[in-house]
């Protein structure tokens, strides 16, 4: 498949602070890719560079065939950005705002991809039909974010960027949102790059996860692939003759078979736990937050590598 986004040795430095120290990855057409990492790992910086909103310090970046730092309006017409708004357009209604902003895409309409989206359908997709004619100032935080998503996709983008899209969502809103993102990818073939610090969200949405830590990509794989790579020692717990036992073993299957051969029916409450991706990710986040980002990134890269 053809690469829609290509990033090579991307670097970003603010003053003396190196935020990105050499980021490499590709995104292929139609993929949903999650940029996962602890807060402050450089996710927002990376996505803003790809959106063309921020100028990088060094490296090569190509997004839909153009350098986003110098991309033209035609390029804009084919990309969508979901922004985190907080109080813009308070006197507008969702319908009015979507009609207004969608209008900019009309000159870029093609028979295959009519632009902009039908506004009523779009409002329905994000669940704002009932609120379509209310002032935006009266919307709740979650409703406002759904409007943000609608604004991001009103031009039927081929490539969509979302930065921490579900921050502040309640569980129901989050689930609805995941549905919208999946259907965009499945029915429209939209390529999607989103950032999150939530492993669970990455797991639910992404075809592929890019784990960003200490300014570089320390893992690039599917969630399952990442989990498999982490397969190391497993913990086996059991009770025999009223006594609780715990053992860390490299091959749990063989160990358990041997255990049954030896003790038979005396084995009770058997439990086998594998070190999960979640454990590894949490350890990484904790290290990062304690200020040992570099060490944490190395460790994670070793474990998964």
């Amino acid at each position, binding site marked *: 498949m053809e690469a829609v986004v290509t990033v090579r040795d991307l670097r970003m430095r603010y003053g003396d602070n190196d935020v990105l120290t050499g980021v490499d990855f590709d995104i292929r057409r139609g993929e949903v890719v999650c940029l996962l990492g602890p807060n402050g790992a450089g996710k*927002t*910086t990376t996505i*803003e560079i790809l*959106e063309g*909103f*921020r100028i990088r310090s060094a490296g090569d970046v190509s997004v839909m065939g153009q350098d986003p730092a110098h991309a033209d*309006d*035609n390029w*804009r*017409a084919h990309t*969508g*950005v979901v*922004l*985190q*708004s*907080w*109080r*813009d*357009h308070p*006197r*507008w209604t969702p319908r*009015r705002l979507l009609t*207004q*902003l969608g*209008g*900019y*895409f*009309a*000159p*870029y309409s093609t028979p295959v991809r009519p632009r902009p989206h039908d506004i009523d359908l779009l409002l329905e997709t994000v669940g704002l039909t009932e609120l379509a004619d209310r002032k935006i100032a009266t919307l709740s935080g979650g409703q406002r974010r759904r409007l943000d998503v609608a*604004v*991001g996709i009103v*031009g039927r983008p081929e490539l969509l960027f979302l*930065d921490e899209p579900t921050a502040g969502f309640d569980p129901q809103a989050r689930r609805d949102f995941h549905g919208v993102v999946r259907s965009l990818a499945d029915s429209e073939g939209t390529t999607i790059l989103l950032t999150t610090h939530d492993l669970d969200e990455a797991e639910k949405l992404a075809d592929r996860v890019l784990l960003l830590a200490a300014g570089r990509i320390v893992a690039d794989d599917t969630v399952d692939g990442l989990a498999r790579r982490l397969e190391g020692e497993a913990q086996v717990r059991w009770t025999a003759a009223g006594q609780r036992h715990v053992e860390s073993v490299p091959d749990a299957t063989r160990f358990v078979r041997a255990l049954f051969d030896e003790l038979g029916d005396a084995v009770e409450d058997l439990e086998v736990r594998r070190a999960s991706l979640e454990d590894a990710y949490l350890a990484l986040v904790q290290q990062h937050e304690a200020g040992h980002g570099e060490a944490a990134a190395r460790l994670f890269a070793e474990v998964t590598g």
Partner: protein
Amino acid sequence: MNPTWNAVSLGLQRGWTEFVQSVRSTQDQGFYLFTAALAVGYLFLRRDTEVEGTDLLLPSVALPSILGALIAFGVIIGPAYALAMEKEDGTLLRHKAVPHGLQGYFTGQLLFQSLSLLPQMVVILVPSFLLFDDLMAEPSGWLTVAWVIVLGLLATMPIGMVIGALVPSTQKVGTWGMLPVMVLAGISGIFYPVQQLWEWVQVIAQVFPMYWIALGMRSAFLPEEAAALEIGGSWRTAETVAVLGTWAVVGAVVTPMVLRRMARRQTGSQVEAARDASLQWVR
């Protein structure tokens, strides 16, 4: 469909929508009525005061001057606040994320800010014409009012946009926009003849557009003899056109550059930082 013209037409729709929403908002109605009450109240209190050297009453002379000052004030402070706020709340960023969006956004601002003068003028003119006599010497003066307003808009709106683009935060519009414009109103012959001030202050006042807009308005409203009260005993129409025209040309050249620079620097992080800052008033 040409994307640029499409953007301009969307911008005009945007400006009109913003205007209608503003006129319907109690907040903005309150602002218009407040300025009107101040201006008309001042004129009413001094309704019997005679202007020295003429047979005119104070409202006749002061009304055009006040209108001139309000035009300059509204068209500088309005866009300055709008831009400062809309680069913080993400309005500008939204337009940066759509093709030709910034052209539409600035077209909308231009139309909205210009239209905003209408209710401002109406709420002052209507009660003034009901309360006071001899306000407009010749009906042909309305024609002068029209071109002075248009030229005044072109001369002053770029100043407001540049201030709005350059201020680091909305709270700073007070210091960098409001304060200088207030000082300018104080020295531009709005409430007393500029000749009463030191000569160097008069020079400063005549560098900026506010004095000339007010002078142009007086030339529109007052009879020919009243020109005797002005510097050089004349309305100096040619000079008015020259000074305001120069500001308009400089503004037309400089403003797009400043706005482009501002738009280039807009990022989501900046919007987020502004949101965090707004939650943290004490620093």
